[in-house]
């Protein structure tokens, strides 16, 4: 039981770094605890890598299948977390009043968004470690400059986060769930992840090359498979998507 004075006011916000760290930790726990999210972010990329890396289903051109596949699967992992997972989770947080409740807490909105981004990045690190280990086990031999790879992953994350948050902040939660999964599937097939882009008609290729998933998988493949330098064209595509997506999300996001 409580005694007199228990509730005596003593208000105050926790230090900002502590609030953001706590929020990021909670968001990450929510994500790792959610079965559907794990299916999307861990199980599907892992299975695709194992299946297409060990069985010759799609003609991936010269060289080992895994050298073609691993960069595409890494791009898919980024999309699954930053776009699909984040869109679905945020859509339901908005629906269940979580965003509304947090908006009246001492944590500022930009702090919440920072925490969400941190949670996405932590998840991506776990994904990259897991997928890299599997790829190595399948005989992967990556090349290239790690800085280019990092830049691609970060810009890809920014581009997909903007699009995911735009969707979560404007559509109903159920619509976000359906649309985010549909987009995931379409981009998985049409974005150069497991199916080489040159399998598509020439006209379609030009359009598909402008998709963020294509830019990310193609850029990663240029560097990791072919040892190319900074893939400027792909980075530029990702920058445009990131700027447009994040600006639109900032403009149109509705908190409840």
């Amino acid at each position, binding site marked *: 039981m409580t005694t007199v004075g228990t*509730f005596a006011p003593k208000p105050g916000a926790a230090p900002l770094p502590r609030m953001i760290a706590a929020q990021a930790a909670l968001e990450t726990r929510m994500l790792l605890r959610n079965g559907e999210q794990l299916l999307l972010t861990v199980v599907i990329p892992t299975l695709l890598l194992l299946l297409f890396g060990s069985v010759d289903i799609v003609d991936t051109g010269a060289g080992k299948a895994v050298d073609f596949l691993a960069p595409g699967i890494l791009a898919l992992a980024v999309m699954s977390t930053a776009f699909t997972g984040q869109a679905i989770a945020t859509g339901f947080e908005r629906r269940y009043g979580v965003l509304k409740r947090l908006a009246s807490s001492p944590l500022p909105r930009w702090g919440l968004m920072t925490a969400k981004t941190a949670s996405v990045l932590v998840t991506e690190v776990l994904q990259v470690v897991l997928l890299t280990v599997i790829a190595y086990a399948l005989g992967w031999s990556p090349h290239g400059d790690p800085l280019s790879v990092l830049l691609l992953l970060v810009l890809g994350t920014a581009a997909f986060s903007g699009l995911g948050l735009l969707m979560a902040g404007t559509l109903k939660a159920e619509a976000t769930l359906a649309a985010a999964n549909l987009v995931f599937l379409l981009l998985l097939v049409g974005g150069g992840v497991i199916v080489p882009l040159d399998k598509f008609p020439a006209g379609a290729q030009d359009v598909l090359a402008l998709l963020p998933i294509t830019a990310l998988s193609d850029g990663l493949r240029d560097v990791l498979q072919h040892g190319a330098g900074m893939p400027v064209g792909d980075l530029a595509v990702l920058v445009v998507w990131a700027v447009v997506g994040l600006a639109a999300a900032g403009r149109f996001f509705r908190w409840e």
Partner: protein
Amino acid sequence: MRSEPVVQVRSLVKRYGAKTAVDGLDLEAGAGVTAVLGPNGAGKTTTVETCEGYRRPDSGTVRVLGLDPVREASALRPRIGVMLQSGGVYSGARADEMLRHVARLHAHPLDVDTLIERLGLTGCGRTSYRRLSGGQQQRLALAMAVVGRPELVFLDEPTAGLDPQARRATWDLVRDLRADGVSVILTTHYMDEAEQLADDVAIIDSGRVVAQGSPEALCRGGAENTLRFTGRPGLDVGSLLKALPVDSSAGEVTPGAYRIVGKVNPQLLATVTSWCAQHGVMPDRISVERHTLEDVFLELTGKELRS
């Protein structure tokens, strides 16, 4: 408990499209517990959510603890606690996990375990939010509103759908908050809740405050009270009326059943009994009917159903 107003609303107007939800509302709430009553759609939640900083006024001013809830939100938010009407928790989060998280956002939070025990949530700390019962979800939301040791707590229908035990527990908590100097603004549909808890009641209808005062003052002022007694049929009501204060009325409702309407107080009761003594009447079944807050509420807001 009167002092500086904790909430001050002046000429607040809030429209949603063509609909005017709040229409020039003035409200001042001091320290203690203020209950905001009103039919559905009266503008209660809109008013409270404007105070919480969720909505921008179309016109008028709102000050909470002396601050503008929108422009000075970052200064205000640590000082207030908010309980939403529903939701507010990650569906996959466990009850204690969410409460601990909100505690971590504050500099000097309450002890989470004590609070969990206090609100009877001990058994469900490990249960995920979506598996809690409605009443448990409400109590968790209440705990989240107070864990940061705020100066002012907003409770939006805190006992809606609770069983009687949980309702009592919530009432006790509100009383303890008040005793410890926390101000509370609560919206409710339950008149007994307002009567039990509130120092001050504001009744809102059609986007305006139609009455405000302590529950006692509202019950006294809103309508006159009734005294009834039974006796011999055919008593001289005219002579009784002469003995009563001028603004009273008296009548024989059915043979032997008498009703006096007026300012019912000890003097009036004494007048009636001494009149009976003078006339050799043994007044049977004397009863005083006090107007309840519900009578006042229905009188002010009408009896027709609201959407």
